[in-house]
């Protein structure tokens, strides 16, 4: 199997003038990401990370360091950021109590705000907006449920769901 092609975030050869000292504050303002400041780079997260074993680019410790340093573009444009499986092993094992997976989620949320959105998230959000479900459930599934004697699937009020998506600033995730 070929190595993953995701771009590697690195802190090498960085001009100090490119560091944005306000970036970490922007991250730490977000829920569960306050703990970024207590990371002392021990590497428990990376050594516990299931993805890191198979990816040449995804290293949670490195991502946290470049976020602390304030390498805004490097971290937000890194495709490796999206390789977190959200298993939360890093969070549960961190000796400093850093909510690593949540910091990474905040970084991905910020990447989305800056316009970096993997297509899959546009598809998921659009499907939820239109149907209430993350996946568009084909008619054949509904028929099959009937045959199997299962109750009809929930049919959520999609207008209400679309309203919540709009209020939570999710509309720009939607496919146009």
């Amino acid at each position: 199997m070929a190595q993953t092609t995701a771009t590697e975030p690195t802190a090498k050869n960085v001009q100090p003038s490119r560091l944005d000292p306000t970036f970490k504050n922007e991250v730490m303002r977000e829920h569960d990401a306050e703990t970024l400041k207590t990371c002392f780079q021990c590497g428990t997260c990376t050594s516990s990370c299931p993805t890191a074993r198979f990816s040449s680019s995804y290293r949670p410790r490195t991502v946290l360091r470049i976020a602390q340093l304030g390498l805004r573009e490097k971290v937000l444009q890194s495709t490796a950021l999206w390789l977190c499986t959200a298993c939360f092993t890093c969070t549960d094992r961190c000796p400093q109590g850093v909510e690593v997976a949540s910091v990474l989620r905040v970084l991905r949320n910020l990447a989305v705000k800056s316009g970096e959105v993997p297509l899959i998230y546009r598809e998921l959000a659009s499907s939820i907006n239109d149907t209430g479900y993350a996946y568009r459930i084909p008619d054949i599934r509904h028929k099959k449920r009937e045959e199997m004697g299962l109750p009809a699937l929930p049919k959520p009020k999609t207008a209400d769901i679309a309203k919540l998506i709009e209020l939570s600033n999710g509309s720009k995730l939607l496919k146009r």
Partner: protein
Amino acid sequence: MAQLKYAFFLGCTIPYRVGSYEVSARKVFDKLGIELVEMPDANCCGLPVDPANHEMMLALSARNLCLAEQLGLNIITLCTGCATTLRKTNKLLKTDKKMKDEINGWLKQIGMEFKGTIEVKHMVQALKEDVGFERIKNTVQRPLTSLSVAEHGGCHLLRPVKYMGWDNPEEPQTLKDLIELTGATCLDYWDEAECCGYTVIAIDEKVALQLTREKLNHIKGVGAQALITVCPSCHLMFDVNQSRIERAFNETFKLPVLHYTQLLGLAMGMNPDELAIKELRVDPTQLLQAIQ
């Protein structure tokens, strides 16, 4: 004993692709005296969009919590992703007043309000805490003593500890205990608590498949005749994607992957058709012969 009546939160993955889990769960729940109340207005739990927009996840899951509050019932889920997401939002909104006020401001616009009156449990937690091992044991009519299986609980069954915290994610025990109630032996293997990779399959298929492949190798290595899962997403990785992994890595596993509810149903004496076992992708014929 706790009241065994729950709001049944189905989620998206089960109706989309893993009907066998729902069919078998409804059967065994009935036998255990668990009453399910449908949630006809439920939407996605919100987990799939959390990486892109955390507030959207909170709003979507809060809406589901409100629906269960209106029913006056605790939620039971079959999906670990739904369980961790709904539990997390429930706890956050119960403890963080600022967040609760913000989300309630949104909910008000669709005529809802989060009050914080219910709890959320994954099936495994409910089987342990509400149903109890004794009651489950009493329903076993055909102990599966000839079977040796392995378990994969899935990350979101027990992580993050901050929101789950009812079993040890490093040494998970409950699912093993539940499996042994059926009479089957539950084997240990090296990376039991590791992730299946499902959540990144749309981002990097190779990373995801390698995670599953590694676990399959270790499960086969200890001689398990089947793998037992309690999450539709994990099940997709191990069952539906197993042949894809075999092709990609030129390996053969042929490891049947059953939902825990199917294993328990078999031990209760139900026939495989009732439990939708023929819907499984990896042929379980040999396994079924072993228990005859």
